[in-house]
């Protein structure tokens, strides 16, 4: 196509687009913002990181480490295990390994002590597996990978629970605890990110 003809068609197209824009901007009112819901309220998360066995171990550990207390939901109510499955799936490899081998260790200890998987242990039985792995610490976490795992698991379950929507809702309903975990804060949006 000769260059002049091409420019002609380009100018026609531009004029047409401009008139369309003009017509749209002449609309008297803007549409209302579409109301939306969070994905968690509409669907279940697909779990892909942990094995079925590891998932069962994680859920049992979650029910014991971060149970519901009074009106405040526990880790299971807050779907903390399901969230951790997602979080770990996008985490650096060393943390993934820590979690996988940590859950496997809980299971192997359960089998060794009670000849059944961790997910089937009573609270008293599970305590014999969990308790030796929990150490008090500050600033420098334990270096033993199994203790480190349980340290992280306990803290992560707590965060995933207290920062969940069910917990925030329960917290808001309980005025005495409104200022506790799971609160709000200033979130910084991306500030003029580099466009290159």
């Amino acid at each position, binding site marked *: 196509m000769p260059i002049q003809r091409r420019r002609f068609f380009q100018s026609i197209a531009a004029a047409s687009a401009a008139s369309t824009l003009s017509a749209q901007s002449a609309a008297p009112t803007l549409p209302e913002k579409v109301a939306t819901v*969070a994905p968690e309220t509409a669907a279940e998360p697909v779990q892909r990181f942990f094995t079925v066995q590891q998932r069962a171990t994680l859920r049992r550990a979650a029910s*014991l*480490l*971060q*149970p519901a*207390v009074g009106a405040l939901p526990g880790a299971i109510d807050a779907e903390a295990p399901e*969230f951790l499955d997602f*979080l770990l799936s*996008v*985490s*650096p490899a060393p*943390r993934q390994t820590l979690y996988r081998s940590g859950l496997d260790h809980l299971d192997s200890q359960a089998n060794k002590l009670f000849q059944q998987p961790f997910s089937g242990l009573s609270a008293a039985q599970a305590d014999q597996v*969990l*308790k030796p792995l*929990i*150490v*008090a*610490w*500050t*600033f*420098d976490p334990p270096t033993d990978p199994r203790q480190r795992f349980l*340290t992280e698991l*306990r*803290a*992560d379950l*707590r*965060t*995933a629970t*207290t*920062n*969940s*929507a069910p*917990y*925030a809702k329960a917290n808001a309903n309980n005025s005495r605890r409104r200022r506790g975990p*799971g*609160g*709000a*804060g*200033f*979130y*910084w*949006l*991306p*500030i*003029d990110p*580099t*466009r*290159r």
Partner: protein
Amino acid sequence: MPTPTYDVIIVGSGHSGGMAAGVLTAKGVRCLMLNAGPVVDFEKDRTNKAAHELPFRGFGKPGQHPHVFQANEFNANTWVDEKEIPYTQAANAPYNWVRVRLVGGRSLFWARQSFRLSDFEFKAADHDGFGENWPIRHDDLAPFYSRVEAQFRVVGRKEGWPQFPDGNFVDGGFDAAPDSECQKRLTAVANKMGMGVSRMRAAIGENGLASSVNLSIPNALATGKLDVVPNAVVRQVSVDKNTGKANGVIFLDRHTGREMHAKARVVVLAAGTLETTRLLLLSNLANSSGALGHYLIDQQYGCNVVASMPEARDGKATPQLIGGGLFMPRFRNLDKKEKRNFIRGYALPMNTGSSPDPRYFTEYGEALQKKLASYAGSCVQGSIFGEVLPRKENHVRLNKDQQDAWGIPTLHIDARYGDNERNLCKDAADTMEEMYTKAGLEMLVKSDKVNPPGYSIHELGTCRMGEDPKKSVLNKWNQCHDIPNLFVVDGSSFVTGGWQNPTMTILALSMRASEYLADQLADGNV
């Protein structure tokens, strides 16, 4: 449009750059300020959100800021993205380089703890024979400290101790509430152990912010003598081949990569310690001494010791019983005859009346909840601000094998703490434990470990000042020995770091250097 002619280009807009702009423009000096990042809009750039509304429930995007321990999902977008501007570290020597490139830099987010250095730091080599003295002493900087303290509205309690010089404190804002029983008990023990007990000193600024963006730059802009260009990634200080003097800087537009050359009679670097040194290394300037990039220091933070006051547990933590802070400025090695397995010293900041973190306990589930409820409000927590020795081997250099997003070589950091830092930290932890025990508290947890270098966000040195051009990069006016119209006014000029948060000293040095520069410009000496 003709290119404007500036008297001074200021690279960086944090505390030191903002101060330079304020002082110079007030004296009629025409300035151009270049900043590598954008301007913050406090209304549009942040919004109130609940943690559950964040994509990662407050955990933050995994791996996003591996060296910024201070990062969380709420503030993640304020820190420099390490993928965009990477750096490398020596093997087994992690360094936490914590950066902000927004206009205002780290002055937007600092903790506002405000101290002066004393002659125990300025003349440290005279005291213990290690390293070099500063070419100035406290008396030289005192008038500038006083003016900075007034501008930043520093509050504190005067003590009259030589290792803790009093400031020009403003009235109001200081917690003058009577000491709680816990504070009294700890103070009595500390005094018996040879420590003075004071209170935290802090800048209250204006409307909760003590930053260049509200305390320095607005006044400079009001003079009509300051132009600010955001998103200007400076890659080189340019030099006139005939005179050997600096004549400007070359920068790239952050978004487009377009290269620009800004010219001025004088260049002032205020990009933050390591970015300033990186820029000088990139420009191949100011290194006749061989000291550029060396003697990297900071302050060691960490070493956490926590106890609980038994009488304050189970809902009995009244304000009369527990609450309030204590601050023990350096008390070690003030006497030259004192013999320890470390030189220099540390300060102990301590708070009382806090609630425990779950990690302090071995319980879990409902038992943990009960424990947390029982100990709520009963805790005493202490940590350290520890001095780090300036050693030549702790250094930075260019890594030409790795470039940032604009093709600029990055920095390689090789810094580690030594026995002096480790012994000092252990002494601090043991001292706190002794304090708690003697005060009748129940010990909960104790760590005598520190975070990696850089964690305190107080990186200093690498472009130090000194009398001898063979041992230092700058003279006592923050003026480059090699190039008289090149000044460095940020923390890179430090010779020693002390235990003190360096901001007041950076500001006072920048004010002093900028007034000197204005006089030199007026006299035609630069």
